[in-house]
């Protein structure tokens, strides 16, 4: 199962690759990276129908994470991708908006990778 990480911080890729190096090595998880909402949508287009779990930052220049969430949930119904939102601003408004748009989960920075790993594993099963 492919996991798409969307964040404007490029080092997120290195970090995820390090954090999940065992899972990647064992092919338990496969990570893809996009550095903006637009890039993420392109990826979705070229990888249609692949079961995808999306981890997206909300605050990004250009298309925001919430906009991305909205579009994904509108366009891709089969199979519906799991979308988990990540934000530094863990406020109720953001949370409610994300949930309204169909977010499957809502995580706040700094990420607890142990928790994230558990959640990903749960979702991947």
């Amino acid at each position: 199962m492919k996991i798409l990480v969307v964040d404007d911080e490029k080092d997120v890729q290195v970090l995820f690759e390090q954090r999940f190096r065992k899972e990647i090595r064992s092919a338990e998880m496969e990570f893809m990276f996009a550095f903006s909402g637009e890039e993420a949508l392109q990826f979705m287009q070229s990888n249609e129908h692949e079961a995808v779990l999306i981890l997206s930052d909300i605050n990004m220049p250009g298309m925001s994470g919430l906009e991305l969430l909205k579009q994904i949930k509108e366009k891709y119904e089969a199979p519906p991708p799991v979308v988990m939102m990540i934000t530094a601003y863990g406020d109720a408004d953001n949370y409610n908006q994300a949930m309204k748009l169909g977010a499957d989960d809502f995580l706040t920075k700094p990420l607890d990778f142990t928790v994230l790993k558990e959640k990903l594993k749960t979702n991947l099963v």
Partner: protein
Amino acid sequence: MRKILLLFGFAMLCITTQGQEQMQDIIKYKCDSIFSLLEKETNSDRKVELIINFYLTSIDGFPFLLLDLGQRLLVLGEQRKDPIIESSAWSALAQGHRLTGNYVKALQIHGKAVDMAEKSGNIKLMSFAINQMAHIYKDRLENEKALSLYKTALAYAEQTKGVGMWFPSMNLATVYLNMGKQDSSLHYARIAQRQVGTMNMLSNAAIIASTFGTIHSRKGNLDSTRFYFDESVKIARESASPRYLNATYVALAEHFHLHKQYDSAAWYCSMAVNIVSNTPSANLALKPARMLIDYYQDRNPDSTVKYWRVYASINDSVNSARANQQIQMLTLEEEQRKRDIEAENIKYRNKIRTGLLLVGLALFLLVALYLLRNNRQKQKSNLALQKTLAELQTTQKQLIQSEKMASLGELTAGIAHEIQNPLNFVNNFSEVNSELIEEAHAEMDKGNIPEARNILHDIKENEQKINHHGKRADAIVKGMLQHSRNSTGQKELTNINELADEYLRLAYHGLRARDKSFQASVTTDFDPSTGKINIIPQDIGRVLLNLFTNAFYSITEKSKHRPEDYQPTVSVSTKKLNNTILVKIRDNGMGIPKEIIHKVFQPFFTTKPTGQGTGLGLSLSYDIITKGHGGELKAETKEGEFAEFTIILPS
């Protein structure tokens, strides 16, 4: 011959006695009308004119009339407390006493008249009073004293015009005649005659005429002598005054005596004696009586005795030793009084001079004090102004600082967010490295060196990430400190695109952190050809931050009212144009109303609610761009649609 003469004399006497009464009635009548005019008159000079008019009625010829007039004037003067009338009263009384031969009393009273005249301050009156007083000395042949007084009177008279001002001249002519100085006498007699002019009916003219007669007699001009004496006799007869007749006869007698016609001289002398006998002016018989004594001495003892008696009785009363002494004393007193007055005057003048000097000095001091006080106040207010200026400057600095701190507050949340990301990386990579080190140990224990090497490589890469993000956080903190610190004013080559991007993010996250519902799309369009330009980065950063904050504020406000279809957008773009760099910050917020667009760069102007803005942001921004960088800051807006601020900087 003698009988005829005597008869003539008797007839003359009868006629004159009768004429005297008639004349006195006329004079009384004239004086009454003058008196009633005087009672009504208020003007000082006209009063004096009226007083002199009394003497133009020939009242001088009748001492009792003068004494009577003097009494009436005294009553009026004292009643009215009028120094002019009082002085004239004393003059009239004194003249009356003089003409009756009472020189001591006359001189005393003349003194009062002069006093009063001086008190009144009327120059015409002073001339008159002094002139009248001088008669005493004239009569007594104290010529020097008489001259001095008449000249004083003349000096006063010359300052004025009007009737009677020729009196001193006439009298001076008489005195010089008495002194045997014919030429001087002639001089003054002519002046008097010129001034008398048309006043034909004046009895005093008899005196002037007889003066001229005497002068010509002495000079041997017998024709002229006769002419003037005829004139004199005529006028004297018309006046019906024993006094004027006496004076004329005496002058004639002297003339005949001079020319050795002793019989004629004696005849006129006896006429002169007779005309005044049994009249108040009996004393005027002194001189002719004396001449008759000489004449009869060797001719007729009876007549000699008769005239001796006449002479002696007059001489006793007029020229007694006691009277002489008294006159001298009075004269001395008068002179002393004059000296006192003069001294008093000098003292007074000095006092006035000193007073004026003091007043001048006081005024000068006042002006000086005023100027000094003004100066002091100016200095004081200058000091106050300087103090106020210093306070204002301090306040301005504090305000700028508080504006900075306020914008720092706006930044804080943004900065926190900005730091959060690198810190997360630092923490994460650090944790990952710890794990990797464990794994490397494990691999090494297994002897799997290549794998251990791979892991070590990763550790090194992560270490670089840690370092990178640590530095990133460091730079953000430094930037924040720089922002709050006072500008160093140092320009340095700065990438304007990076600066704009940095502050855009700070502003965005700052607002985002405070208002979590805040959403905005942000677009950037940086012209890569702008390169680095020479600016003070903190200052330009502050301007950018201010413009971004305003833009975000504006779209936030608008989105509150139009939540549905409104897509709040802030865009920033840079562009190189010729030699300038343009930085445009545009928002599609509320825009700025036309009526306040010209105010937005004024200090303390703000549309934000109290407490939310200092009103200094745009004003400071304007100063930074225009004064600090020689650039321009322009605003373009349409109310309700957009606002676009353009920074124009020299590249």
